[in-house]
């Protein structure tokens, strides 16, 4: 790879509407390799939608997303832009991992089976190798002993840690985490946050949507404040939480402080 001239993730002028309502109104965001960026903002500001666009789970009407220099999702030629084929989209989606608020583990597969599916079918690894990688990742999220349990036999916190292992095992360039603790009972939140902190410390590139302000402050290299479909402020945690410039951000922080 040539010396890094381009950011790992470059979002330019991203616009997204649902029907007549514009949800993203021109978002620009860069992430370099190893960055841990948290997105904060009030409900409905478009945080989830932004992550879903990056993971190509939503179509978008304007702007461009480039991952490691490759424009994803669309191909444009002779003045028109076209959505890529299922096969191309799948290849590009495999470059990013996503962890969902509601875990979304596959209920018919064990913890190891969940982690192995992508390794076997997308990366086409032989079974023994996929199993070894899965066990390794399950051990890293503290679930070595639960490899052969089904999701229904695991607590919410354990399920979410399996989901993190499932995303990370694919060795993605970028991992997207959307409020990964908000479906959890309070006493299970910390184990998942610690797991995320662990993978951040190991150098993974993370784009995190969270309502856990203390966590965002601890783990992030940068924090982004979204407001009504735009990025209103982008800076290091010390600036965002200590000396916010944007008036809406200051107000948001006042109302969410605990």
């Amino acid at each position, binding site marked *: 790879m040539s010396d890094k001239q381009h950011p790992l993730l470059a979002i330019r002028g991203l616009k997204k509407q649902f029907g007549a309502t514009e949800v993203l109104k021109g978002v620009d965001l860069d992430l370099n390799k190893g960055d841990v960026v948290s997105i904060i903002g009030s409900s409905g500001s478009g945080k989830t939608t932004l992550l879903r666009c990056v993971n190509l789970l939503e179509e978008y009407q304007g702007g461009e997303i480039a991952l490691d220099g490759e424009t994803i999702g669309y191909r444009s030629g002779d003045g028109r832009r076209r959505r890529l084929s299922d096969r191309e989209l799948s290849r590009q989606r495999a470059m990013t991992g996503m962890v*969902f608020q509601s875990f979304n583990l*596959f209920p018919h597969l064990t913890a190891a089976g969940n982690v192995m599916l992508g390794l076997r079918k997308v990366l086409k690894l032989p079974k023994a190798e996929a199993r070894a990688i899965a066990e390794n990742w399950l051990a890293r999220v503290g679930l070595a002993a639960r490899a052969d349990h089904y999701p229904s036999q695991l607590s919410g916190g354990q399920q979410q840690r399996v989901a993190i292992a499932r995303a990370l095992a694919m060795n993605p360039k970028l991992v997207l985490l959307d409020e990964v603790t908000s479906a959890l009972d309070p006493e299970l939140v910390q184990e998942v946050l610690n797991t995320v902190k662990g993978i951040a410390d190991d150098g993974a590139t993370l784009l995190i949507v969270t309502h856990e302000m203390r966590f965002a402050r601890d783990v992030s290299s940068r924090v982004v404040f979204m407001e009504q479909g735009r990025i209103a402020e982008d800076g290091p945690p010390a600036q965002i939480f200590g000396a916010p410039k944007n008036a809406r951000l200051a107000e948001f922080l006042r109302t969410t402080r605990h």
Partner: protein
Amino acid sequence: MQAFLDQLWIARWPLWEGLLLTIGSAAGSILFGTLLGVIVGVQLAYAPWWLRLPFRIYVDIMRGTPVLVLILAAYYIPAVAGLSLGPTQAGILALTLFAGAHIGELIRGSLQAIQPGQAEAGRSIGLTFPQLLAYVLLPQAVRSALPPWINTGVELIKGSSLLSIIGVGELLLKTQEVIGRNFMTIQFYVFAGILYLAINIALDQLGKAVERRVGQH
């Protein structure tokens, strides 16, 4: 009673053949009907409207038509078209088309009942749509469709008795032939009824056992 048992002993081989053909034609049509039904269900759930439409029409016609009419149609229509199907082939064709429509609806329903998060999680690890179907969606849909699928099997066992109309030598026709020789009408109809009941109770139990197993996860 002794007279009946004597007659039963005499008629044991034709009745056995009839029983096998009943089970065989039901099993054959549930097998082919399941293959057809999975295709139909996937199209109904995911295909664009212009591709979905013919499948929708097929399902609605099959579900709105009495099985007996389907059987007669499968027997007589190909003959008009110059294609000669034997009665057993025509019968299995009719039951397959019937089962395919019902199973198609079952699969469509269970596919659509799966939370959208499942497909999103599958996509996010990079599965293509066919892989998503094969490894994430269909395994879950098939599990939840299993109990009603067994019911379709019961319907087919019962429906196969209608094949006697076009001369398929299944259990009912063989029973009628036996009665034609010995005139023990009530006894042999009751006997045939008990055999149907026994098969269907066995299927039902199988269904419950499967449901318990699947229900665990």
